[in-house]
């Protein structure tokens, strides 16, 4: 019997601080064992449990796309015991992971449609995985127009800034960035994500919307999408809950009869409408 609780060993290849508040650090991990690398297949939106033995483990969305073979990326918000350890760990050290876990984004359902990606703050990780996946030449024809609306409190808090600049230069993706407070160099929009969304009013025709951000942002974005005539079945969000096992056993992350770890983390708004508001 394979033990799903045993982490597989990874080596930290590179780590980088992403934001001006220094609370977000991106880790690039490589597999220690060749056979683990070969059997590891994931789709954007899935997550892993990262563990540092002696400190514990916690779930993080995969920020790299399945196309990037170089490393598995995670962006860690420093908040508690495990995440602090993940901020302190040095390149060359070993980190355990379990995964990939969860359902991921419904990429089959997205096929042939336009994609509207709405992100807020440091929840942009799996959205980055999704966008990077479709921007790869191999996959670019799988969806039509890609629109990204990405907001943070301040310009310095946006993740993956170099990549955002790259995206801006391309003509096959429309990127709208917004902040609550700009600085003198800020050229994007100023305003909350739901309001910016209302302002740019993307068409809902043949379009799927994917939202990931703080609960308060998700709450105010849903009605804006509904007003833009997005049907509930074409609005998706990735949820987080306090999680332990990641495989639907420990009971902690349920919303109604579904588990965020196993049946999610990606849910359609149509699904969520039928569930208790336990999130």
């Amino acid at each position, binding site marked *: 019997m394979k033990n799903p609780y045993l982490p597989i060993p990874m080596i930290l290849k590179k780590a980088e601080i992403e934001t001006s508040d220094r609370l977000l650090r991106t880790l690039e991990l490589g597999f220690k064992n060749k056979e683990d690398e070969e059997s590891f297949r994931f789709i954007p939106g899935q997550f892993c449990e990262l563990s540092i033995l002696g400190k514990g483990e916690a779930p993080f969305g995969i920020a790299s796309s399945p196309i990037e073979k170089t490393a598995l990326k995670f962006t860690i918000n420093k908040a508690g015991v495990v995440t602090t350890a993940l901020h302190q760990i040095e390149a060359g050290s070993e980190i355990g992971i379990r995964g990939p876990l969860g359902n991921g984004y419904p990429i089959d359902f997205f096929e042939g449609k336009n994609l509207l990606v709405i992100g807020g703050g440091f929840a942009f990780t799996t959205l980055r995985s999704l966008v990077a996946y479709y921007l790869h030449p191999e996959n670019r024809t799988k969806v039509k127009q890609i629109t990204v609306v990405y907001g943070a409190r301040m310009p310095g808090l946006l993740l993956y800034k170099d990549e955002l600049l790259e995206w801006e230069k391309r003509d096959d993706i429309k990127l709208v960035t917004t902040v609550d407070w700009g600085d003198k160099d800020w050229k994007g929009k100023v305003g909350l994500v739901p309001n910016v969304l209302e302002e740019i009013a993307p068409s809902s025709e043949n379009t799927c919307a994917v939202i990931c951000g703080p609960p308060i942002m998700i709450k105010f974005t849903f009605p804006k999408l509904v007003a833009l005539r997005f049907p509930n079945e074409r609005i998706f969000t990735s949820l987080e809950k306090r999680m*332990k*096992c990641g495989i639907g056993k*420990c009971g902690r992350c349920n919303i109604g009869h579904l588990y965020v770890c196993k049946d999610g983390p990606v849910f359609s708004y149509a699904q969520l409408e039928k569930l*208790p508001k336990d999130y």
Partner: protein
Amino acid sequence: MMFNLDKKDFDHFLKDLLETHDLFAPVQLTEGVSVFKKIDNPGEVSLSQLVPQKSAKEVFFPQSEVMFRYQIAGNQGPTVSEQKIERERILLGARPCDIEAISIIEKVFTGEDYTDVYFAEKRKRTTIIGLGCNHPLSTCFCSSTGGGPFNRAGSDLFFTDLGDAYFVELLTEKGMAFRVNKFFKEADSEDLGLMKEIEDKASQKVDRTVPVEGIEKRLDLMVESPFWDRAHEKCIGCGVCTFLCPTCHCFDITDEAVNQKGQRVRNWDSCLFPIYSLETSGHNPRPTGRERTRQRLMHKFNYYPKNFGRVACVGCGRCILYCPVQFDIREALVYASAKRGKGRKGKFK
């Protein structure tokens, strides 16, 4: 196959089992308090208490369990070691409700995508000897949840206390392994008659009126009901009902480490604790007792049935017996089942 085991031979029977098996059975810790423990000598076994405080789930899913140990050794990376189960196991003297509950937890811990190896390994290596309940308690309502004081489902062998002997039934392949046992004598028709009589008497005693049937559908309509505002009022969130519940299976995972050595441990947890769902950001999706009480009851009578087709309650009554504020799950079920406009106006105490 049916046998008779004389109580005079019972200790010898257990002694023989101990030669070849790890034996788990109820042990009395103090007057009126018994739990399931690993047995070292036959004298420890105490089958007198009908519902031991802690259920038999502990034999498969211990309150605190080491998942693996590790040693961090310089640049080599850590070495991880798991403990294996050495011997075959026997669970003796579990009551039908506890045995039913094991199958309820099993559905969660096994399953299509992932198998909880810690539970599954113990389950696979365990033979279950069930024991009928001659004198059910006033808090027992197993007959309302699909079981009964002599429900044999899940037992490999089943014992009925006939007074000076046990009536023994071998029910499964694992049970049939006991067909040659020097302490088992062929049961006669008198034994069989007595067993039937005891079973009938006990079955009549158990409350069948708790409205469990159809509860899933009724609760579908009650997610935002004002009932939950009342239901949680007296609950102090101590969590005893969830710890003693034979079907509750939530756990927490933590690391315990000193210097270079450590272990990853899982511990029972409870949805009634605020910290259970509290997130690092400070956000708590179940901020008050209302949401937590709703979670406990909905999980048993709505969420679990949606996933597995039966309620996750076996009517053992422990949550009623040991609740410090007399929260009675039966009352809650009656209230939830009353017709709109009638019972709903009634008082939930």
